[in-house]
């Protein structure tokens, strides 16, 4: 009767963790490069279903923290518990397998490929047929491709990027590239989505758009989000809880209002001599 496919909204996969429980627990992590201490004994957690922000001045260790979470760096000390499983080190591709997806501070897309192909690439981790099947591109492999394409079209619809479906991403303005990158991360159907400065270099309008998409991803799909951001205004409006780092140390952790009024945070941002 209704030919319009009734797609069930893409939601974060069931991982046995109830909304509000701890999804990711970082315990006493320290990381140093030679003599430079990037992170010193930091503990923080991310609850399922929330938007968690990690903020701090330049060089505070935010990106290092994100890199530790998704396995790019292995901390010298401390443990990370994700979905109840403890680990010390992990390869980035293992992180993907476990349901952690991320975007990068400086867009890391395949510039020569179309928006559609870039997001399709995000689905590749979920393709079950091997490369031989995919080269044949018949029967099960084709059916699988169609299934994935449907999911990708849903994401395109969700992010309102239909008009650039076939455009090579290298030709797109920066704000749209960021959106495509978010699309690629969403294609992995992550339990935890890490966003590294999703609004860096954007104008006000692009920031507002991006904020709306982040909130929609969180509310409509129930995806847990941890993000790093410079723009304090955006962070305070967007996130449920905020952790503030300064010189590799945690100086505040809590709801935005509480953090905003913390003397340590004010000092860190206004620059009190250490």
């Amino acid at each position: 009767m209704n030919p319009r496919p009734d797609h069930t909204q893409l939601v974060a996969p069931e991982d046995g963790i109830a909304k509000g429980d701890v999804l990711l627990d970082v315990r006493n992590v320290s990381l140093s490069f030679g003599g430079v201490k990037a992170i010193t004994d930091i503990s923080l957690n991310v609850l399922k279903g929330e938007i968690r922000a990690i903020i701090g001045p330049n060089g505070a260790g935010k990106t290092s923290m994100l890199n530790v979470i998704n396995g790019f760096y292995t901390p010298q000390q401390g443990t990370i518990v994700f979905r109840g499983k403890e680990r010390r080190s992990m390869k980035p591709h293992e992180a993907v397998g476990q349901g952690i997806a991320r975007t990068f501070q400086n867009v890391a897309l395949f510039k020569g490929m179309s928006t559609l192909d870039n997001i399709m690439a995000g689905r590749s981790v979920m393709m079950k047929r091997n490369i031989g099947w995919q080269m044949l591109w018949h029967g099960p492999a084709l059916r699988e491709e169609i299934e994935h394409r449907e999911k990708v079209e849903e994401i395109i619809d969700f992010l309102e990027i239909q008009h650039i479906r076939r455009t090579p991403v290298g030709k797109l303005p920066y704000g749209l590239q960021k959106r495509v990158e978010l699309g690629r991360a969403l294609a992995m159907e992550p339990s935890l989505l890490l966003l590294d400065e999703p609004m860096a270099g954007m104008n006000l309008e692009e920031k507002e758009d991006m904020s709306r998409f982040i909130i929609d991803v969180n509310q409509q799909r129930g995806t847990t989000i941890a993000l790093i951001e410079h723009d304090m205004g955006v962070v305070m409006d967007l996130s449920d809880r905020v952790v503030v780092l300064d010189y590799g140390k945690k100086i505040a952790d809590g709801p935005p209002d509480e953090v905003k009024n913390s003397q340590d945070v004010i000092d860190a941002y206004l620059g009190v001599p250490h």
Partner: protein
Amino acid sequence: MAQSRASTDTFAKYLLLNAERFRDRPAMRFKDYGIWQSWTWAEQLDEVRALALGLQSIGLKRGDKVAVIGSNRPRLYWSFAAVQSLGAVPVPVYADSVAEEMAYVLDHAEVKFAVVEDQEQVDKVLSVADRVPALTELIYDEPRGLKDYDHTHLHAYQSVREAGLKRFSEDADAGPAWLAEIEKGRGDDLSVILYTSGTTGRPKGVMLSQDNFVRSAINGNAFDKLDENETIIAYLPLAWVGDHLFSYAQSYTAGFCVACPESAETINEDRREIAPTYFFAPPRVFETLLTSIMVRMEDAGRLKKWMFDHFLAHASKVGERLLNGDAVGAWDRLKYAIGEFAVYGPLKNRMGLSRMRVGYTAGEAIGPELFSFYRSLGLNLKQLYGQTEATVYITAQADGKIRPDTVGLPSPEVEIKIADTGEVMYRSPGVFVGYYKNAEATRETKTEDGWVHTGDAGFFDKDGQLKIIDRAKDVGKLSSGALFAPKYIENTLKFFPDIKEAVAFGHGREFCAAFINIDLAAVGSWAERNNIAYASYQELANHPRVYETIAAHVDEANRRLSREPLMAASQIKRFLVLHKELDADDGELTRTQKVRRNFIAERYGELIEALYDGSSEKSVETQVTYEDGRKGVIRATVRIVDAKVHDVPAEIMREAAE
């Protein structure tokens, strides 16, 4: 085919008829998730019925008003039919109107329900809900972002539809009762209320009946031979009368398929995929389309560029003559055929117009070059003159009788007369019922015996085609009683690239005179080529040789005016070249670069007097505002020159006398 010509009196009845006669033919397409989804007429009937029953169960009754707000998508078009099937009246509202305007329209129309597209519109309606006391239920199509809203009076389209489906399957009486409601519908029932944006004052709600739309649509279908095989793409605002006629009324009466684009940004791509056979666009769409092609051609290789230029030049030579069915030599025909294969065909495909059989442009005057460009490619593009109050059609150009400077012959069943004031008036089956809750405005616009004032002044040319010359309120009379249409005269002058702006005077005067502004770019480059030295705009404007050039242009303009019987009396007898450029900063132009006639008349009163008192020069001081806000004074002696007036050519005199 006889069946496809069957007619009835309401759109709900057409829906039932179409579900039978065009059962499995497509009625609606919508690109969603990257794929064109289709609904046949039978499925469209199911959808409309489900929505109607759903709306009924949340309280919609005969006579209620229902706002419809959003972009072109099937569900909003279905809500028109569903609402009408219950005897209620849809009120489409411009989706981009700000909350303030929306509040006025919703309240004035006393809407009880609103069917809207998404969260953006829900928020807008909710923000003004306290000023719209009649509004009770709000239905939205796109659920995104609305999960946590209070749903006591807010309904997802999906759930209303499902409730309707459930009622239909569980309650054996629901279906027949709905059919009985449709049977109650009459041709003189209100079909929609459309609010005209109006440049002055509050928008007015134009009430149009089922008959208005049914008969206009049938006449339009017959005029352009539209049947169930057409495809159109719906992309213009739902609240605009044209879209309601083309994408709803004509689709229901002819049975053709309406395609809704994926989003506003993808329209060009979607049009290419659909390749509409019947297409409507305001001039700026054609302009943008042409510009984007020209820009791309700049990057083309040398051979391609040469082919493009060469064949387009050929098209402009013979294309329009071929389209009009005039005699064209065999060699030119062959060359045009090669051009069609090599250039015109691919070009039309790129623009998504390769299947276009009938295309219209209206809304504002289209540039003759632009119009001719599309026609020379073999596209049957025509002009239309219409109004909301007329259910669109007043005049339209018939195939083969097309000229860029007219808006065509009266449409079928439309009578037109020109009032003594020069105003165009019409009477037709499309004439509106009245303005909603505004009897006074209705009386001002519509006479007792059904004639409607268009507010535009115009005249019929010798082929009986209507020419629109100006807004009626700007048209005056010379002291001899002859018509004086300043904009027409100014446009005739501005046709010359050397003339940037012109202001014509003559109302209540003996003859017509004009201020002329030279175009600094055009005249400046001419001066350079002719070794004429000048230090300022003022000096260039006052240069004797510039005066000579302008005098030649005025002479040519007079020659053109003399060929129009109605305009011959307002040939320009005296003119002057203004010593400064008319400027919006000085209040002489509007921000959209339109001449503010009254302001100029006041500011340059002395110069106008000099035009009429016979003096040959006049010294003036004019205050100017510089871009940084400083004020200064320009002093100048402006020369006033007589122009030659042409006799009306004898054969035109004869025709006018007949």
